[in-house]
């Protein structure tokens, strides 16, 4: 059949199939163009499919009771045990060392990171390593931007080494189990994954000069004239009625006054002769320490809408740096227009974008993803509180964990879990549940720590993705798309495998890889069946392709997490990410075929 007949075939979809296609397209559009939470998008999508009768009640619930979801959730508890007994921190501290050459530093960092990522959550590892890397880059005198992207690539590539390394692998394994009744071993993907990792790491080391050498976002607040500070005149300030010149607030040590706003925003001319009034907001640019000295010398306060008097200022504050998250609700808004300062009792001091100052009043700056914000916060501010962490990523988080005997216990539990599941003594589900129970029983973490370590949002979007995948399979979309692929590329199994992998690889650059995997698993399965081959190698290749989300900052959580701290631009991800994605996908397909010769059914 030719191309035109394939298109004609697409018109043969049932009403249910068209509804599912429309829903999937809507999901992709909402994910791309809005800030709605992924889990909410997924739940709404499957809700719609249930409401219109595409899915029945059993199918709707299937995602929530899927082994994939349970394993992913329970793994969070296992990770909490490792984290709170200090095992991860100990490893991070002792394996990096102090290499004297940049290529050696890349290898010293990427190899252990990818190994850990094979068993642990990519997102949590990126968060933990992010803080370690910042300090490490200072010691090595290497720009963090030269390390954060390779670390993220290592985390992503390492995640493909085992079935539990990333939830996408678990989805595929679970789908394979449901479709064939067979189970995939925890290390089924190890050989192709390791080959991809090897090629990927060598490629990154080889093209290391392509990595951007960016000023750290923090430097924006350390270098003169690279930030702005807004100070307010309290109503009881002794300089009221004086001119700016008379009060010594026009020409100041270490900076310049660049704007003045009176209480009512009436236009005012910036001159030495302008009178000072209570409620004035004075915008300075210059050395932060010098300008903040004006607080004491001239009885000014950091600009904040609720501060009226010096007596209200609490001295127990500290400066903290935060980055605007990719899906933060603050994007496109100003801090002045949000309640984040009031809700968290903190005050915005300065804003920088890509290492450069923003001269406008900080609280009036319309924020973008990756912007660096300098806040004055109470020392005890919990920057990891969910309501705050969902908007801002604080870079100076340091987790202090005492390493004790429980570190050995948690390591043993993890090792036992890996061995028992790898040897098929127990199933993956049994293994993870037993390990989680053991972590709690031996007090490697508290119940609260365990519960906080489970990403409920991720579980919801995972469950939703699985149900969406069910709809794609049930309505015949997977089969028809697979048929079309076969018609387009022929019945040569390698080309079929490569074709579906390339399609998944492309879409995973813009849509979360969990959703892509759930959509493509039934398609890949059907494609393998169409050409009459055992589907396992095809699905293993899909694991690698769907995880190869390196080319954009929005493709996966780890990509987003390094965007702000690395001071990156969108295009920085593409420079190495595009060739790396292609290399890893093609290597993955080749490695799968080498490791698992294709077998006719």
């Amino acid at each position: 059949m030719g191309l035109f007949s394939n298109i004609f075939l697409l018109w043969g979809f049932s009403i249910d199939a068209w509804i599912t296609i429309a829903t999937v397209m809507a999901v992709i559009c909402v994910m791309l163009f809005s800030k709605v939470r992924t889990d909410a998008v997924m739940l709404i999508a499957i809700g719609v499919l249930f409401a219109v009768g595409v899915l029945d009640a059993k199918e709707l619930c299937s995602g929530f009771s899927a082994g994939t979801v349970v394993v992913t959730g329970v793994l969070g508890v296992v990770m909490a045990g490792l984290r709170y007994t200090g095992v991860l921190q100990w490893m991070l501290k002792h394996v990096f060392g102090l290499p004297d050459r940049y290529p050696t530093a890349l290898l010293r960092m990427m190899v252990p990171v990818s190994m850990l990522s094979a068993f642990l959550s990519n997102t949590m590892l990126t968060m933990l390593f992010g803080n370690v890397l910042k300090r490490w880059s200072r010691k090595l005198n290497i720009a963090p931007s030269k390390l954060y992207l390779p670390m993220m690539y290592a985390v992503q590539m390492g995640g493909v080494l085992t079935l539990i390394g990333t939830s996408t692998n678990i989805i595929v394994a679970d789908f394979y189990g449901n479709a064939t009744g067979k189970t995939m071993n925890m290390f089924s993907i190890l050989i192709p994954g390791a080959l991809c990792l090897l090629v990927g790491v060598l490629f990154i080391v080889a093209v290391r000069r392509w990595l951007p050498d960016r000023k750290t976002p923090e430097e924006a607040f350390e270098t003169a004239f690279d930030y702005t500070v807004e100070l307010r005149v309290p109503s009881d300030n002794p300089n009221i009625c004086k001119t700016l010149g008379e009060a010594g607030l026009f020409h100041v040590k270490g900076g310049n006054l660049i704007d003045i706003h009176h209480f009512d925003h009436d236009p005012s001319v910036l001159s030495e002769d302008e009178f000072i009034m209570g409620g004035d907001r004075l915008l300075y640019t210059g050395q932060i320490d010098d300008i903040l000295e004006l607080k004491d010398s001239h009885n000014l306060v950091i600009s904040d809408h609720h501060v009226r008097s010096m007596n209200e200022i609490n001295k127990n504050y500290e400066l903290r740096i935060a980055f605007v998250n990719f899906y933060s609700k603050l994007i496109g808004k100003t801090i002045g227009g949000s309640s984040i300062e009031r809700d968290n009792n903190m005050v915005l001091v300065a804003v920088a974008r890509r290492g450069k100052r923003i001269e406008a009043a900080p609280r009036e700056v319309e924020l973008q993803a990756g912007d660096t914000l300098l806040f004055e916060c109470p020392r005890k501010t919990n920057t990891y509180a969910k309501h705050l962490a969902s908007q801002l990523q604080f870079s100076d988080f340091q987790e202090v964990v005492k390493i004790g005997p429980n570190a050995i216990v948690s390591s043993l539990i993890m090792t036992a879990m890996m061995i028992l599941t790898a040897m098929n003594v127990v199933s993956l589900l049994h293994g993870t549940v037993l390990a989680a129970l053991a972590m709690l029983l031996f007090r490697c973490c508290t119940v609260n720590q365990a519960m906080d370590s489970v990403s409920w949002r991720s579980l919801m979007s995972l469950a939703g993705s699985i149900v969406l995948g069910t709809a794609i399979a049930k309505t015949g979309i997977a089969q028809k798309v697979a048929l079309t692929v076969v018609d387009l590329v022929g019945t040569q199994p390698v080309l079929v495998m490569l074709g579906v992998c390339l399609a998944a690889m492309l879409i995973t650059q813009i849509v979360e890889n969990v959703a892509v995997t759930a959509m493509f698993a039934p398609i890949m399965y059907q494609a393998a069946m169409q050409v009459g081959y055992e589907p396992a190698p095809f699905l293993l290749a899909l694991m690698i392709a769907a995880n190869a989300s390196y080319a954009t900052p929005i493709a996966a959580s780890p990509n987003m997490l390094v965007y702000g701290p690395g001071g990156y631009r969108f295009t920085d991800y593409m420079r190495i990410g595009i060739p790396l994605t292609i290399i890893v996908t093609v290597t993955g397909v080749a490695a799968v075929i080498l490791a698992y010769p294709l077998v006719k059914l």
Partner: protein
Amino acid sequence: MEKDFEVNKKGSVLTVTLGNELTAVNAPTLMEELTPYKNQGIEKVVFDATNLTHLSSSGVRIIIYCKQKLGASPEIVFVNCDKMILDVLDIVGLRPFITFEER
């Protein structure tokens, strides 16, 4: 805008009868009228605020000008001041510099 204030000098007392508002719209005109009284020995400036309902920072600038530049720190008196105007004077920190009278 039509002039909505009146300035009268009687001895060392300057009386400014204000209209509904003292804002960026009429403050520059009032400033022009007040400037000639600079260094004229003004000891007291009385603002009749009976009709005043809106005071902006441009208006506040006039009050400070009178206090700081018109003479040797003349006394500033506000007559029949509305609560909203009092609040503004509170925010800008001028209340301690002003005497309030009800007539």
